């Protein structure tokens, strides 16, 4: 098991992560192409995506289907071909999460999700058209209680 430690940007075991290549980078960040997808069962549906070449670039990502009951996206034939997607079962969809200091305003970007072919380990940030999904979908319905920690998640110090 891995932990999302405070020092996750410095030390995360290599064998606990999967390398995903975003050939065109992220939207507006074309230089960020190769990421480690870091997963911890106790932290799901949250995962981390850390840029391999610039480890300071860490994104918090979430399974959008877990937070939006009717989330539904269509992957274009061109994107499917680009990522070598043959079966929907191979696809992992993730939304990038913005985590401000005030956790009441934690949001997920449902408008431009990351589509990853877990077979080929290739991903792309797509921009949905003809949808109303917000770029800043609030994910916490109630603010977490300040200072209270749950024992279920052990963070390495």
């Amino acid at each position: 098991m891995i932990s999302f430690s405070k020092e996750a940007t410095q030390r995360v075991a290599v064998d606990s992560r999967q390398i995903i290549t975003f050939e065109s980078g992220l939207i507006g960040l074309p230089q960020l192409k190769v990421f480690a997808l870091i997963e911890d069962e106790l932290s799901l549906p949250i995962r981390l995506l850390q840029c391999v070449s610039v480890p300071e670039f860490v994104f918090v990502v979430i399974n959008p289907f877990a937070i939006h009951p009717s989330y539904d996206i269509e992957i274009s034939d061109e994107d499917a071909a680009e990522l070598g997607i043959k079966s929907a079962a191979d696809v992992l969809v993730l939304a990038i999460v913005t985590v401000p200091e005030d956790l009441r305003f934690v949001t997920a970007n449902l408008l431009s999700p990351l589509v990853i072919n877990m077979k080929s380990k290739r991903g792309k940030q797509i921009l949905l058209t003809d949808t109303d999904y917000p770029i800043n979908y609030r994910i916490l319905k109630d603010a977490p209680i300040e200072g209270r920690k749950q024992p279920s998640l052990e963070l390495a110090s």
Partner: protein
Amino acid sequence: MLILTRKVNERITIGDQVEIVVLKASKDKVKLGINAPGSVVIQRNELLASVTQENMRAVAGPLDRLEQLIPALRKQLHQAPTA
């Protein structure tokens, strides 16, 4: 930058597959029609700009914020009725 003046219903062709037609023009608005193959990605630039901005904002700050976020989120999802 190449600058062309077009009237309503006049067209321009870009490459051999993209055609743009001016459908309507008013004082500060033009309505364009674009004919292009599905492989050509067409986006409103301000939408790309807002995604870029959100991506920048999302570069994670201190990850210890997750220490509170993850339990709160998991609790919320656990309580939600399974649909």
